[in-house]
């Protein structure tokens, strides 16, 4: 018999998801892929919000907060993709290793 899913399970999941996101952000060359990593990290945080809401707060405050977070993430992705397009238009590439015009 499987034991019921505990808070720790959720936290382990979100930890794994966050780590995968960080790994993607730090290693991918493609800017779109980096954005994907960022999305993973955000959603890991959302899982945390919902999990804590279910097990500790026992209300819907955390879940509503997660909804807010998802909406804002959508807006953020829109802006980020616009920036990527703008970068592509000027440099003809979205390879982050080549985007070093801010080099000191």
């Amino acid at each position, binding site marked *: 018999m499987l034991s019921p899913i505990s808070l720790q399970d959720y936290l382990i999941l979100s930890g794994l998801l966050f780590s995968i996101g*960080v790994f993607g*952000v*730090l*290693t991918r060359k493609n800017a779109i892929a*980096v954005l994907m990593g960022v999305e993973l990290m955000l959603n890991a945080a959302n899982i945390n919000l919902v999990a804590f809401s279910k097990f500790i707060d026992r209300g819907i405050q955390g879940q509503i907060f997660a909804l807010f977070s998802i909406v804002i993430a959508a807006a953020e992705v829109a802006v980020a993709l616009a920036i990527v397009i703008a970068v592509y238009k000027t440099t003809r590439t979205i390879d*982050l*290793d080549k*985007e*070093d*015009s*801010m*080099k*000191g």
Partner: protein
Amino acid sequence: MIEHMIWMIPVLPLTGAIINLLIGKRLPRRVVDSIAVGSISLSFVLAVTAYFHLISLPADQRQFTDTVYTWIGLGSFQVNLAFLIDPLSAVMILIVSGVGSVIHLYSVGYMHGDKRYSRYFAFLNLFAFAMLLLVLSSSILLMFVGWEGVGLCSYLLIGFWFEKIENARAGMKAFVVNRIGDFGFIAGFLLLFTTLGVKTGIWSLDFSVLKSNIALVPVAVLTATGIMLFVGATGKSAQIPLYVWLPDAMAGPTPVSALIHAATMVTAGVYMIARMNFLYVLAPDALRVIAIVGALTAFFAATIGLVQNDIKKVLAYSTVSQLGYMFIGVGVGAFSAGIFHLMTHAFFKALLFLGSGSVIHAMSGEQDIRKMGGLAKKLPVTTATFIIATLAITGVPGFAGFFSKDDILYNAYVSPYGGTFIWLLGVLGAVLTAFYMTRLVLLTFYGKPRMDHHTAEHIHESPKTMTVPLLILAVLSAAGGYIGMPEVFGVHNVFAQFLAPVFNSGFAVPEGSHTLEWTLMGVSVLAAFSGIGGAYYFYAVNTELPARMAQSFRTAYAWLLNKYYVDEFYLKYIVGGVLKLNTILSLFDARIIDGAVNGAAKLGKKLSDFDGAFDRIVVDGAVNAVGDGVVSAGGVLRKIQTGLVQNYLIFAILGLALLLSFVLL
């Protein structure tokens, strides 16, 4: 009505001058001379109106002031821009504007072809303005403005043809010599002003205030003031020792000479002494100085006039000499006699100069009387009027000069400040005057023509604008003396009576007996005729005599011809002395002052060198060290800034991990 229009008398010529100076060049010549002649003539009309208003008043109230505005107001000390009309200034404005108008009119013909036509008339107007301001002002300070104004205008007009360096020099000489005199004038009136102010608390330069308080000033100060003011007068009125500018002033156009010698400028000194009569009657020593200087000038200038060959130079020395007579007059206390001679002299001297201008005009610019002769037939009007003026200046009975000169000589004899010596110099001067004037007439108008053929062909009588003024002045020279006929003829001396209120603070010249007066008059007449006769014998009968005389008295002749070497004396000892002093001062300047300045400069340079080094090594060093440090630190740190966003994220995450490890562990 006319009381409040007095200010217009000087302002009209000023307006004319301003218009002609500003836009005269663009106006047609007819308009330029109309403005000039018109403005001065209007002044004359106003002067006549003022005169008639004045004589309509009772004799003791003949004085009014037209105050335009307060020029200087410092507490109780006030100088008003105010014009004073009394019998003395009325006579003066009539002479200045009257004779001035005639000369303006004459200039229209004389300056006909000049290229600076409008400027000439502007200066002429300005000259009349300055002189009218001088005689009309009610305070010494305003008078001084006019006094300087005539000096300036004489400079401008004497040097009018400045293309020739001698003319420009003559203008400068006139100005500088006048300035020397002006210094005396300033010193004089400031001495009077401060003494009166300190002693009594009355700070004023107004003639009427000074007149009523003059008795409060110590006699020594009055004498000093009187002499200093007279120094000013010797400059303006060409007396020994400052007369040297006047003969050189011939460099200007001839009508200007007429204006300077007759109507304006040289009469300023005589007028000033007469105006300050209230001071002089209390300072008899100053009066004696004036009388003696006047007598010496009258005599010595006449001796120089004997041998001059330039027609205008002869007239110039005669002016100096005649001014000497005026100073004898005012110097012996006979102020009205001095002013009377000033007036008659204005008539006949203006006529003589304008006549000589007409001669020069006819002679195509020739001024040497040795190259003239026989002009009488070709220049009838000029000759006739010139002879009338000569009769007037020599003192032939009936002509203007006779009455005025006789008045002066009589007063010189009987006055307590005069005496036999001054009278004798005057009479000798009269003989000489008659001699050189007759010589001038004979050499110029009679005898054989001595000009070259070319000039002779061009001789012609002058145009109407020149002869009409000659005729007007001839009438005045002939008849102008009758208003001052002495009482010995059984009439009242109208002129002296008219002026009496101005001079009433003075003393009466003691009455001599009628026998004495007739005797003295006889001597004057004898002097005149002996001079005329002598000259006639020398230059018409025995014409070789002058040359023989010059041969046998060679030294004396040379002294006279060279005007006693006064100019040379001044040049060598006074100008030379000043130049030597200048050399010494310039050495002092070069060695000591420049040395000190250069030393200070060197010291300053050393100091700043040191400062510079400190600045370079210490201050700049510190600043550069800081800069260099920052630059090298930046060189190290810049390597972190890769520009790669993922590197930054690695740092961020490492930092986060570090923070978390602190919080959690």
